[in-house]
C-alpha cells in the first residue's frame, strides 16, 4: 500500500502529470498576462500544451560534436529534479508528500539543478550561441542563488525550523511575513525571475544576441522536457513564496488566488522592464539586492537571538 501511495505521489499527484499540466497552465497564464499588458491578444489556453505535444513528436537532432549521452540526459535530469522538488513542497494547499527536517535546503538545490543542466547542455554543444548562453546562465546563477536562499532563510529563522511544512505552519499562525519581512519577499520574487530567466534577467536567452542561448541546439523532445521543467519550477517557486510570505498552506482555493496574484506581479515586472546586460545583472544583484538581503538577514538574526535570550 505504501508503495502505491509513493507511486501516485511520484507519477500523478502532486508530482508527475498533475504538476506538469499545472506548470503549463501557469505558463499560459503568464504569457497571456504579459500579452495583455503589452496590448497583444496572447496565446489560446492550450498553446503551451500544444507546443509540448508537438515538440515531443518531433525528431530530436543531436548536433555533431556534442556528447549524445549528455545531450539527452540533461533535459531528463532537469525535469526529474524539478519533479522531485515538488514532493517536498505542500502543493495546492495540501500537505507535502514527503517531509523531513532540512527539506527546504534540498528543495532549493533541486531547483538550481534546472539552471545547471541548462548550462551543461549549452556547454556540451559547439554552437557559439549556446556557449555564450551557458556562460551567462552560470554567471547569473552565482548572482541570484545566495540572495534567493537568504530570502527563504528569513522565514526559516523566524519559524526556527528548516522544514518547509513547519515554516508554513508558523506562517499560517502569525502575521503574513510579507508585512514583517517585505525585503525578503521582494528578493524572493526577483530571485525567482532570475531563476526562470524571465525578463529583465533573460540575458542567458536574449534572442536578439544569442538566439535561444544555451538551448539553441535543442529542438524536439529535449526542448519539450526543458520547457516542462521550467513550468514545474515556476509553480514550485510561486508556491514557496506564497507559503512563506503569504500566510502558510491555507486551502486549495486561496492557494490558487495567492499564486495567481504573485504571477501577476511577475508578469507586470516582465512587461515593464528592459533586459539587463549580464554585467548589469551581476551589478544589480551584488551591489544592491544581496546587500539588502544581508541587512534583513542580520536584522532577523539579531531579533531571533534577542527573543531566544529573552
Amino acid at each position, binding site marked *: 500500500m505504501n508503495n502505491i501511495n509513493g507511486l501516485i505521489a511520484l507519477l500523478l499527484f502532486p508530482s508527475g502529470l498533475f504538476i506538469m499540466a499545472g506548470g503549463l497552465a501557469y505558463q499560459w497564464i503568464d504569457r497571456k498576462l504579459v500579452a495583455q*499588458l503589452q*496590448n497583444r491578444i496572447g496565446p489560446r489556453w492550450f498553446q503551451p500544451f500544444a507546443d509540448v505535444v508537438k515538440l515531443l513528436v518531433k525528431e530530436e537532432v543531436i548536433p555533431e560534436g556534442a556528447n549524445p549521452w549528455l545531450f539527452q540526459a540533461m533535459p531528463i535530469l532537469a525535469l526529474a529534479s524539478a519533479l522531485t522538488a515538488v514532493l517536498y513542497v505542500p502543493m495546492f494547499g495540501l500537505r507535502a508528500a514527503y517531509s523531513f527536517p532540512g527539506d527546504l535546503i534540498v528543495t532549493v538545490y533541486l531547483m538550481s539543478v534546472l539552471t545547471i543542466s541548462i548550462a551543461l547542455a549549452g556547454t556540451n554543444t559547439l554552437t557559439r550561441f549556446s556557449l555564450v548562453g551557458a556562460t551567462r546562465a552560470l554567471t547569473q546563477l552565482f548572482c541570484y542563488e545566495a540572495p534567493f536562499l537568504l530570502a527563504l532563510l528569513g522565514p526559516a529563522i523566524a519559524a526556527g525550523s528548516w522544514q518547509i511544512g513547519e515554516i508554513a505552519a508558523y506562517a499560517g499562525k502569525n502575521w503574513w511575513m510579507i508585512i514583517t519581512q517585505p525585503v525578503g519577499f521582494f528578493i524572493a520574487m526577483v530571485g525567482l525571475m532570475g531563476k526562470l530567466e524571465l525578463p529583465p534577467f533573460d540575458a542567458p536567452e536574449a534572442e536578439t544576441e544569442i538566439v535561444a542561448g544555451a538551448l539553441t541546439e535543442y529542438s524536439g523532445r529535449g526542448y519539450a522536457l526543458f520547457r516542462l521543467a521550467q513550468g514545474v519550477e515556476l509553480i514550485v517557486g510561486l508556491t514557496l513564496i506564497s507559503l512563506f510570505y503569504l500566510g502558510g498552506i491555507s486551502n486549495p482555493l486561496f492557494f490558487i488566488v495567492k499564486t495567481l496574484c504573485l504571477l501577476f506581479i511577475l508578469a507586470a515586472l516582465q512587461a515593464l522592464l528592459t533586459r539587463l546586460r549580464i554585467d548589469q545583472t551581476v551589478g544589480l544583484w551584488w551591489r544592491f539586492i544581496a546587500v539588502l538581503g544581508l541587512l534583513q538577514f542580520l536584522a532577523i538574526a539579531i531579533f531571533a537571538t534577542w527573543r531566544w535570550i529573552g
Partner: protein
Amino acid sequence: MHTSEHREQFIVPIGPQHPALKEPGHFEFTVDGETVTAASARLGYAHRGIEKACEQRTWVQNLYLFERVCGICSHIHATCYAAAVEKLAGVEAPPRAQAIREVVAELERIHSHLLWLGVAAHEAGFDTLFMYTWRDRETVMDLLEVITGNRVNYSANILGGVKNDITPEQSAEVLKGLDFLEKRIQHYLHVVQNDEFFLQRTRGIGVTTKEMAERLGIVGPTARASGVARDVRVDSPYIAYPQFPVNMMVEESGDLEARTVIRIKELTESCRVIRQILENMPEGEIETKMPRRIKEGEVLMRVEAPRGELWYFVKSNGGEKPERVHVRTPTIPNMASVVALAVGHQLADIPMILAGIDPCFSCQDRAVIVNYAKGGHDHWTWEDLRRYGIEYYRKQRRV
C-alpha cells in the same frame, strides 16, 4: 625557454539568418568573454539587380520599380526619382503636387521612425515599448491609406505630379490622426528619457563623436545625433521644402539615447510641418504633362530619406529608357559606424548598435566591380551577369 601566448579566437557570427537581423547580412564579432575585440561585416546577400533592371524599362515603369527599393521608405525613393527625371526633362511639378509629396514623405518618416523605435526597443529587450509603438504605427499607416489608398508601397507619385489629390475630408482625417500621434510621441519621448532600465541600455552606449561621424561620412539622424548638422531638407530644400521648411534637430551626445531622442523629436517636427501644409495647401493642378522621351543629360538628385541622405544619379540618352540610374541609400555610409563602434562594447550592446543606424540591407546592396585589370570588363550585359551568377553558384556548390 620560449612560450608564445596563443589565444584561440572566439567568433560570434551574426547572420545571414539571425533573430537580430530583419534582413540578411553577415557580421562576425570576435569576443573576449563578453567584450567585442574585432568586428567585420559582409553585405550583399539581398542584391536584386535593380539598377540593371531599370535600364530595361521605360521612364514611367521605373517609378514603380524604384518604389520597391525599400518597403519602408518607398515614397522617398519614388519622389527622388521623379524629381530627378523632372529636372532632366525641364518640367516642374505644380506646387500642390509638391506639397502633397511632402505630406506623404513626412507621414512616411513618422511611420519609419516609429517602426525603428519598436525595433530598437526589441533589440534592447523592451518588448512592451515595441508592441506599443507598432500599434501606434498602425494609425499613421491608416492615414497613408486614406491619402494614397495603400498602406505600404503608397504609389503617390507620377512623373510630373502626384496621383491623388487630398480632399478636405481626407485632410481632416489626417489632422485627427496627428492629434493622437502627437500625444503618443510625447509619451515615448518621456519614456526613452526617463525609463531607468531602458536608459541603462542606451545612455553612453555606442558613442559616435562628431569628429568620427564626419570622418566616416555618417548621414541622417545618426549623424544629427552626434552633432553634425546635416539634413538635405534644410541644406538644399527640394519639392515643397522651400515653402514649408522643417527645423533641423541636432543632439550632441552621439550615444544610443541621442539617436532615440532625435528620431522622436523629428516625429514632432514632422507632425508640425504636415499640419502646416494641410492648413495652407496651395491651390491648383496636381500634375503636368511629361514627355515620353527625356532629353539627353545627367542629373544628381539628393533627398532626405528617413534614414538619411539618399541620392539618385540619372543619365538619359534621349530615349524612352534611362541609360543609367545609380541609387545610393543612407545605410551604406552608416554601416561603417557599426563596425567601428562595435569594438570595445559588450556583445549585448551589438544588436542595439546595429539597429541604431536603422539599417536597411536589401536597399543598399549594389554590385561594384573594382578589379578592372583582371576581367577586362567595364560594362556588364545581362548575359554576362547571368553567366557570372551561374558560375558563381556552381563553384559554391562544387558541382
